[in-house]
């Protein structure tokens, strides 16, 4: 049953991806002005306009270009970076794991902070702890990640002459160092998502805690931990998981700034640089990957509903 549901969802995802690919492909071509002329004058990517047009395949009708590009994408060929002159797939293979690890760590951080604090805040409603947690959450939501990152990087340097950002270490060189260097950026990246999720956990849990079946659980004399964690939290988490999916997309967006501040050569910084360099194939490829990732994450979230609530049938 679950497999059928997944297959159905994948089928629904396919048109979304196709539509996204069309947008990703078409948008750069709708920019006013001649992109090719701009690229040629600025970066001398090719010897003349005709060569660059041919190189980008822009000398053919738009629909032909699109289907050709799509055909290559399906075969796993995302083109060649004009900047590094390497296949985009190769570049992404090198950079995507870093961004995914950063995003994953940030999400874990958000969940690790949000769920316990949210639960505590709900269970101890209107106490000092609750107020403190809610205030912290509002602060977390209000403080932009780039500002927090800047403070975290600059203040220790001014106070103690110490810089919390080390030179980038590759995974193969030092796996522990690789993860270690991502902890601080991930924590900063996860703050806003954590705050949003915490507020939701608290709100949802408060609602569930007022339900009859919970009152029954209390009446049966169950321990608080069992009532809250076993009977209430699981039900409170369904909307939380949905929001978490949205937050993951925001976390991926936030990596652009965080990777720049912390000097991490991930996919987001690759996209940022590609936009500055007018590296046209990379812009298309990275956007396509990001869209695909978000579609997949949402698919995974849908699948998670069944685990959290067995009443949900596919």
């Amino acid at each position, binding site marked *: 049953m679950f497999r059928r549901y997944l297959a159905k969802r994948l089928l629904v995802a396919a048109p979304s991806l196709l539509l996204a690919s069309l947008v990703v492909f078409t948008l750069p071509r709708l920019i006013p*002005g001649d992109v090719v*002329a*701009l*690229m*040629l*004058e*600025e*970066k*001398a990517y*090719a*010897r*003349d306009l005709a060569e660059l047009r041919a190189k980008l395949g822009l000398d053919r009708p738009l629909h032909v270009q699109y289907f050709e590009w799509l055909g290559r994408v399906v075969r796993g060929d995302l083109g060649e970076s004009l*900047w*590094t*002159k390497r296949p985009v797939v190769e570049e992404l293979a090198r950079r995507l794991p870093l961004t995914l690890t950063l995003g994953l760590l940030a999400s874990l951080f958000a969940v690790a902070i949000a769920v316990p604090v949210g639960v505590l805040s709900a269970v101890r409603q209107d106490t000092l702890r609750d107020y403190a947690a809610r205030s912290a959450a509002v602060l977390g939501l209000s403080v932009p990640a780039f500002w927090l*990152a*800047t403070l975290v*990087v*600059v203040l*220790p*340097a*001014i106070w103690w*002459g*110490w*810089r*919390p*950002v080390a*030179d*980038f270490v590759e995974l193969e060189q030092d796996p522990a160092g690789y993860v270690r260097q991502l902890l601080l950026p991930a924590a900063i990246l996860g703050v806003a998502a954590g705050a949003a999720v915490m507020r939701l956990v608290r709100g949802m849990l408060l609602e569930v805690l007022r339900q009859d079946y919970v009152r029954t659980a209390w009446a049966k004399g169950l321990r608080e931990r069992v009532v809250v964690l076993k009977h209430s939290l699981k039900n409170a988490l369904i909307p939380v998981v949905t929001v978490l999916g949205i937050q993951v997309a925001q976390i991926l967006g936030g990596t652009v700034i965080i990777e*720049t*501040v*912390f*000097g991490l*050569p991930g996919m987001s*910084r*690759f996209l940022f*640089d590609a936009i500055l*360099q*007018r590296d046209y194939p990379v812009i298309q490829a990275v956007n396509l990957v990001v869209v695909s990732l978000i579609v997949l994450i949402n698919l995974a979230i849908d699948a998670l509903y069944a685990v959290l609530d067995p009443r949900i049938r596919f």
Partner: protein
Amino acid sequence: MSLSRREFLALGGATLAGSVLVPSTVRSQAPKRGGTLSLRLWDPPHFDHMLTISYKTNILLSFTHSRLLRHKAGPHVQPGTFPLEGDLAESWTQSNETTYVFKLRKGVRWHPKPPVNGRELTADDVVYTMDRFLTIKGNANAYMLKSVDKVEALDRYTVRFTLKEPFAWFLDMLSSPVAVGIVARECVEKFGDLKKPEAVVGTGPWMLESYRPNTGMTLVRNPTYFLPGLPYIDRIEVTVDEDNASRMAAFLAGKYDLGWEFPGTINRTDWVQVKDPLKQKRPGLRTAEFPANVMSHISMRTDGKPFSDVRVRQAISLAIDRQELIDAVFEGVGVFNPPVPAALKEWSLPIDQLGEGAKYYKYDPAEAKRLLAAAGYPNGFPGTVCFTTYGSTVLVDSMQLVLKHLKEVGIGAKLDQKEYGAYISTCFYGKFDSMTYGPQTPFLDPDNFLFAQYYPGELKNQSHINDPVVADLLIRQRRTFDLAKRRELIHELQRYLAKQQYYVQVPSGVYVAVWDGALKNYGPNLGYDYGGRLVAAWLER
């Protein structure tokens, strides 16, 4: 704090005496081999300096490539001056106004890397490079040597350049770090072009050992460098750091040996914030201040109304409160620029020596309004100002002030903000309707500021100037080899241009060059030649 140019130069001299000249005592110390220098530089778009005008590429290649001539460097060279010396050329002669013969050093070896594998550099390499420089499509700098007619190898170590016409700046062009680093034919043949890091094979003091996209580069000492014993520094670790907070923190923590901004400086706004912590954290740090050659100006369509009327252009210049610009965007420390930036000390004429035109550099909105009324615009006129931010808050702030100043005399200029690429391909090359505001390439010679911007038909003649007086002076200075006479022509030109106000120049900031106290025999200067300034420096850690 605001300084007149005279005061600034006096202060500059004092500053230099206080900090830059100190290493002359150091020079008597024995140089020390070894050590690693740490720099913040930029990730180049690619490594082919003939296919990009990017400073990021040119700066990197200043470590790895040689030119025929170069600018002298070191603590004894005053920033803003560029005395020439041989690089690959051991000597050179000029037999007539259009013929130059260069004798190359013998035994110069290419980096011991494939595909060149350390073979000897010969005259053919110079001929090949010049040919590629002048003929390759996409070389935006080719105009710098467009006076060259032919380049011939007379023998293995002798090259003759024949020019189409006299060009007094020819040697300056050859020594420019934005132009002709000598390249090996084998690299172009193997890689198709020189864009890949593997193609970075030169005869310069350091070799590119590794390139980590978006992260950094490592340069190692070239063991076969043609100047015996040089360079002293074994290794240069380059970090690509695109965030200012991160760069500032890294510098405070002692990571970088030079200021993190171009050219080894710290932006004054940052400097004001960090100089006190730096006194405690890095007490040995050395500094020198000199004017920046990055100069912004307002260009106007002088080929049509209203800017064809000189009174309108003069009014615009009088409307600009240059002192307010210095106070607001350069923390109060800046210099007024005549048509040749004040930074080019040997060529720029002080404002008070511009003669009749000097008055147009004063802030006088009442006189500006009077001139506009006399020109038939008593209520001013509408217009647009084409602009791009270059990602610079300094530029955005100054743009806002310029708009305010124009509005105060009745010129209702609307901001026409463009994306960088669109700006470069249109307004930067004179394709606009009304006005444009922005910085110009920071060249090291006056000809690039003058000829390119004022000669009829030139690509960067943004104001569409067609003035026979200017054209005549521009040609004459190019044909005048006597330095004193050429300087007088350039001064005459500046006096004339000050009256005409074809471009309205705004002030430049004053760089704060900063370097670690352990770096000896280093002298900061303008320009991309980081490698040249570091080749004879050493680390005393």
